[in-house]
């Protein structure tokens, strides 16, 4: 009897633990100790260490295995002897989490990740003099709040672009011109509309409200006080019943648009290019709606615990070279950071199409930033920080 009870008890515990661990996921243990960002910057780049471990967006690190003509990794490896190990991340949050492991040398961080990485001491200051291509980069991308803190550079600009509105031309008619089409509560495309499934998408609702509800006085969609934030969250909650899936990675959205599971919603130029280039091509179109949009401006940053810092410096220089910039800008569909790339693209008008040097265009694009308490103006500390954005997002998804 007692044996049986023991067995029962043990079994009881094991099953309870299996249930607990199966949803606990694999965490990376305790978060690393914060090292001070005031590490001495290197003054020279030595010989490569033989490899470099990168975290980047889909399409930023291509070695020709997807399309042989899009390969800027192999020439880099041949030239420097640094073997590239690439880990694709699908969101800024994922990038921050991966960088915290300390297992990577560098990351292509968007503005909503870069400040968190700097504040957490996960990335080190960059000596821009050691990256010769830095001097050619558009001045509009330098010394921005998302790559420079208190005059200290934390990375090399990669390129920028806007989040677009995409639709299947064989389903959605007429062609939309405004974000209003995704917030329409009596939409004929119910269940087929998609949003980007991350908290930062609240800013997209704020961009729409900025244009349509001037009384809210929204200026920057990442600096939202109570009223503005609640209005944006309400808009998304009203939109929720009309939504189908959220998309969280580019590949999932590509299959969903191919199978008509999604027909209308926000996207990156990368998915538009891939869908239009697929065989047979998927009939999609994408625009920057009249209200403007959110967007991104990415920065290559080096980890404060990089094991291969020399290779990382070499990579930061290589990815901002005119040749690599031309390839990556065309492949991903974005504006390059290096103007010298514009003469090397296969489509000669690439830089005009993507408004590389058109600041009036990028005035309508609100590049991803980390929301913080400090509104940056006379409202003081009354803005919603990212943890509140995360919490509200859980409630929106429901």
């Amino acid at each position, binding site marked *: 009897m007692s044996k*049986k009870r023991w067995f029962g008890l043990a079994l009881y515990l094991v099953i309870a633990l299996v249930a607990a661990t199966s949803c606990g996921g694999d*965490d990376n243990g305790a978060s690393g100790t*914060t090292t001070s960002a005031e590490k001495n910057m290197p003054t020279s780049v030595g010989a490569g260490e033989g490899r470099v471990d990168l975290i980047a967006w889909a399409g930023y690190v291509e070695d020709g295995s997807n399309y042989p003509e899009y390969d800027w990794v192999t020439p880099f490896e041949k030239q420097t002897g640094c073997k590239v190990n690439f880990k694709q991340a699908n969101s800024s*949050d994922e990038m921050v989490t991966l960088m915290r492991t300390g297992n990577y040398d560098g990351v292509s961080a968007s503005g909503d990740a870069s400040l968190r990485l700097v504040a*957490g*001491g996960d990335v080190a200051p960059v000596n821009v003099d050691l990256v010769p291509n830095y001097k050619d980069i558009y001045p509009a991308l330098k010394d921005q709040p998302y790559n420079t803190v208190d005059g200290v550079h934390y990375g090399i600009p990669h390129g920028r672009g806007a989040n677009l509105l995409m639709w299947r031309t064989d389903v959605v008619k007429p062609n939309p011109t405004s974000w209003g089409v995704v917030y329409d509560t009596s939409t004929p495309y119910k269940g087929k509309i998609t949003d980007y499934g991350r908290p930062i998408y609240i800013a997209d609702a704020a961009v729409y409200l900025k244009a349509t509800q001037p009384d809210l006085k929204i200026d920057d969609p990442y600096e939202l006080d109570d009223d503005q934030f609640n209005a944006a969250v309400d808009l998304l909650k009203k939109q929720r019943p009309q939504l189908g899936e959220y998309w969280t990675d580019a590949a999932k959205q590509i299959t969903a648009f191919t199978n008509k*599971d999604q027909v209308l919603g926000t996207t990156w130029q990368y998915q538009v290019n891939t869908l239009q280039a697929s065989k047979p091509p998927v009939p999609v179109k994408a625009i920057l709606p009249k209200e403007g949009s959110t967007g991104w401006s990415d920065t290559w940053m080096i980890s404060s615990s990089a094991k291969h810092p020399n290779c990382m410096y070499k990579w930061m220089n290589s990815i901002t070279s005119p040749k690599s910039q031309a390839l990556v800008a065309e492949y991903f569909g974005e504006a390059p950071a290096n103007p010298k790339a514009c003469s090397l693209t296969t489509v000669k008008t690439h830089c005009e199409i993507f408004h590389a040097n058109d600041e009036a265009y990028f005035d309508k694009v609100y590049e991803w930033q980390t929301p913080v308490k400090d509104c940056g103006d006379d409202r003081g500390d009354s803005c919603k920080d990212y943890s509140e954005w995360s919490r509200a997002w859980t409630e929106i998804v429901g």
Partner: protein
Amino acid sequence: MTASTRAETPPRRGPGRRLSTFLSARPRLRLALLLAGPAAWLVVAYLGSLAVLFASAFWQVDALTTEVVHTFTLQNFKDILSTDVYRTITLRTVAMAAAVTVTDAVIAFPIAFYMAKVASARTRRLLVVAILMPLWASYLVKVYAWRIILSEEGILNWALEPFGLKGPGLGAGNVAPWLVFSYIWLPYMILPVYAGLERIPDSLMEASSDLGAKSLRTFRQVVLPIAFPAIVAGSIFTFSLTLGDYIIPLQVSSKQFIGNVVYDNVGVANNLPFAAAYATVPVLIMVVYLAVARKLGAFDSL
């Protein structure tokens, strides 16, 4: 190794032999040594990680740097209890786990009964293989296959189209995850029920019919009471596995389940303490569930 060391130890009393003489006189020590490995595994890897989980549930995360702050707070639990959305998600997950369990039990029972009592030895073997076969394929492959089946231009809509019907589709509803959960966990229900039914002696059923009971009554009053603990045992698997899963909802639904909130807090928001706090919810639910299952005798039939 050398001549001198060999001379020191008598040839028949090597260290191994001395150890076995020592142990043969001490049965308790023998048992302790035998169980030390598995027990250490259980205590350190299983109970240890659970302890860390509980401890970190009382920490918090700095808003900007998202570093864990190691000071005691009950805020995570307050948030879980006071925010409507977490209650909704918990209820939805439990309802889904219950629906999947009932569905699997209803489907599994006839199959298990046929295997245990009707089929020939050969058919039985074939059926066991057929049921185990899906477990050899990767879980992810099966979930993605369901994505393709359920998609707008997928085979389900194609098959239903002539009847003017439409599948549940991906995204909005709870139907798609319910279908996929029920499919994926079905073998975990069939096998314990089959084992439980096989243990019922045929003579009991014969006796029941000799005493004049019709087959329905035999089923209700003889088979079901004996097999019930086995069904409860199977339900432990289907229920607990549904409670913790986040991949199926992520792939075929846009609704959030407990696992998704935990996953998002670990991987997206990087808020481990909140994830830990919310992960204690399914643990508590399972403790209650297992206590009830124990009362119903499920552990005796495992």
